[in-house]
């Protein structure tokens, strides 16, 4: 899943909501992302924190399926920050 924005652009984004799913195994982070997306308005950015390395590709697949914009991934200390913009 290619990122649609550059890393510096990604770092400049302030998410509207952060979902901390660190420590959860598949499918936990995906389910948290789905739940979190329901709480933000269209156009908002959701950021999912996950320590599971498959989360980013799962979130990418989910975004493509349900029609959200997968923005990209930022590597943090021991986890990854996955950014998605709600499109519908």
């Amino acid at each position, binding site marked *: 899943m290619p990122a649609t924005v550059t890393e510096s652009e990604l770092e400049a984004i302030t998410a509207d909501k952060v979902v901390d799913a660190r420590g959860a195994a598949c499918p936990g982070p995906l389910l948290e992302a*789905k739940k979190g997306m329901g709480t933000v308005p269209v156009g908002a950015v959701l950021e999912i924190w996950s320590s599971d390395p498959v989360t980013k590709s799962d979130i990418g697949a989910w975004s493509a399926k349900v029609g959200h914009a997968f923005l990209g991934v930022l590597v943090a200390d021991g986890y990854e920050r996955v950014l998605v913009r709600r499109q519908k």
Partner: protein
Amino acid sequence: MSDSLSLVLFSGTDDKLMAAATLAAGAAAMDRPVNVLLMFWALDAFRADRIATTHGLAYDAARPRPTEPVEKVGALPWLETFRQAKEIGEMSIRACSGSLDTLGLDPTELDPIVDSAGGIASFLMAAESGQILFI
């Protein structure tokens, strides 16, 4: 082809139920309608009086495989995963009426996560042309 995912759950061990719950929750998150039909030992696992107890592991877990990691109490939160699938998506869980009869169970004895008792035809109608998996 329908977008739905339909699962016929036959096995009632915690490992197979966890695998099924993972599939169901993933499909629900992907906005795919999920239909679950509980038969035999899977149906028995959803009895309200026993749902929170451990239900063992499949034969695949026979020694010498290391089973300790999945034998830990609470390591396989399949019921919670099914609950989340319902919360985030469209999922129905039916109890096979034939299995209820065979096991001598009344629908009122099942955990409330089970929506209804149903026959095979109504399950197949709900499944339409979508995938059906037997677990």
